[in-house]
């Protein structure tokens, strides 16, 4: 699989069809994968693909990486889940489909965090998204890897969804205490925002100070405002790549809020993010028949 990938990358670069291949490579000790940007055909051998390839590289297609954009047309090595994010980026006019080449990788799942890798991919070290994955055989310009026979469960299952169900059943006080405890650890490093391919605002609301909407201090008031706003802005857009939670140095379970909202959006508006780049994100459109029994 890796050889086909390298071959394809080499070919694309040699033919000049793309100027850079955004993919995964090993770190020096070969314990972790890390994003690599291959610009010379000769370097295509650096590309790897394995269950440690957790990063959602579509992040590097966004405007904020202007120096990557400056390299020229990119090809991106993407898992099915990453392609969902690309679809949202396209639907939000952040990139044009024809401006990128997608090398889709069939995928049996990745690890939740790279540190968990012990040489074998076991269900217990896989994130919830992989257990519910319906894009193991991605749609892309080129698909690399053998076809994978896996049927996603009809109802979302796994730790994230179990926890959401648990929280839904608990009382307001319990929920408040749960989040209070988690958000209190937030250090406002904004890794969740920076790693999120869909947080592409040129100036984030957290950095707007006239007025200061979100207090910059890492106290509970500022932390709650930040985390709620971040979750809200991803409503109907988040494709559950899980990068925010993985990046969080404080282990805040951000997938819970994101997926809760994804479930709400699915129930209320019948929308699942990332499956059709031609459909508008649900929060910028409306339906006359939207639920309104909560409005007096």
């Amino acid at each position, binding site marked *: 699989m890796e050889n086909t990938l390298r071959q394809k990358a080499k070919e694309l670069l040699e033919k000049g069809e793309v100027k850079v291949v955004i993919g995964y490579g090993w770190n020096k000790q070969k314990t972790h994968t890390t994003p690599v940007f291959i610009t010379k055909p000769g370097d295509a051998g650096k590309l790897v693909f394995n269950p440690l390839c957790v990063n959602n590289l579509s992040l590097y297609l966004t405007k904020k990486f202007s120096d990557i954009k400056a390299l020229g047309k990119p090809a991106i090595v993407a898992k099915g889940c990453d392609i969902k994010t690309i679809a949202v980026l396209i639907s939000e006019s952040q990139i044009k489909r024809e401006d990128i080449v997608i090398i889709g990788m069939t995928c049996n799942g990745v690890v939740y965090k790279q540190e968990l890798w012990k040489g074998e991919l076991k269900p217990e070290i896989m994130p919830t998204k992989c257990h519910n994955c319906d894009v193991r055989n991605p749609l892309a310009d080129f698909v690399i890897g053998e076809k994978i026979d896996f049927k996603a469960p009809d109802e979302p299952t796994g730790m994230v969804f179990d926890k959401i169900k648990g929280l839904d059943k608990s009382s307001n006080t319990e929920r408040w205490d749960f989040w209070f405890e988690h958000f209190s650890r937030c250090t406002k490093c904004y890794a969740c925002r920076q790693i999120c391919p869909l947080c592409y605002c040129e100036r984030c609301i957290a950095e707007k*100070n*006239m*007025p*200061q909407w979100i207090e910059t201090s890492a106290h509970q008031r500022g932390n709650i405002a930040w985390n709620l706003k971040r979750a809200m802005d991803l409503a109907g857009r988040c494709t559950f790549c899980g990068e925010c939670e993985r990046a969080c140095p404080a282990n805040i379970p951000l997938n819970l809020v994101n997926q809760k909202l994804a479930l709400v959006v699915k129930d209320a508006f019948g929308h699942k993010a990332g499956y059709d780049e031609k459909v508008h994100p649900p929060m910028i459109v409306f339906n006359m028949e939207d639920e309104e029994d909560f409005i007096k």
Partner: protein
Amino acid sequence: MNNIYLPYLATIEDICEEAPDVKTFRLVFKDPKVRDTFDFKAGQFGLYSAFGAGESTFCIASSPTQKGYIQCTFRKGGRVTGALSDLGIGDTMGFRGPYGNWFPIDEWKGKNIVLIAGGIGLPPVRSVIWNCIDRRKDFGDITIVYGAKTVADLVYKNELAEWSKMSDIKLVQAVDPGGETPEWKGKVGFVPTVLEQAAPSPNNSVAVTCGPPIMIKFVLQALNKLGFSDEQVYTTLENKMKCGVGKCGRCNVGDIYICKEGPVYTAAEVKRMYNDF
């Protein structure tokens, strides 16, 4: 406890609207002890607080020879300058400083002085100007070249008028092409060009320049053309600052902390710095 982040309180005694969005405040410290002992040198800066909005950095625009008060001139731009600009006469604001180094005016005794400023870059130069005027006999010729985008954008209009009347000062005023009004009597052109036309002699001279980075770049070239060496030219570097005391880590240009080792540098020093502007 000695709290290096605690500002002095000061009352705004006077406000002068210099240009659209540009104001000059005259500040008097509330604490009489501070009022009497406060001293600084031309080129130094401070952090000005609008309580509730934060602190902003700009130079002290008055001359150290003017005692009992300080002045600052700023353009309304961000959160703090916006809040400052909303304050009125009699209101209280904060001041922390003076910080940084200064123009070595004492070393300039007996020399000719050329002062070149653009737009809102005049305030630090103004401090030097008044300082020199107050010690006029210490210096040779004084030439001031000042330009702004439009006539309206010229700051210290009253003082410009005053300086233009002084027989021992040569003042050249200019506005960018298109910025002139029918009544405009000064030059029309960009500061570097006007400077070249004024052609001050580099002999036994120092030049001070302050203004937007692009202007400084071309002023330095013009000065070189006129025969000024980089050691003869002084400028001030401006960077965003939060602490002003060499700790918060944002004003550095490479390994040089502007708040401590700056903001005044010779052009020669600037050229030796890391390219981090």
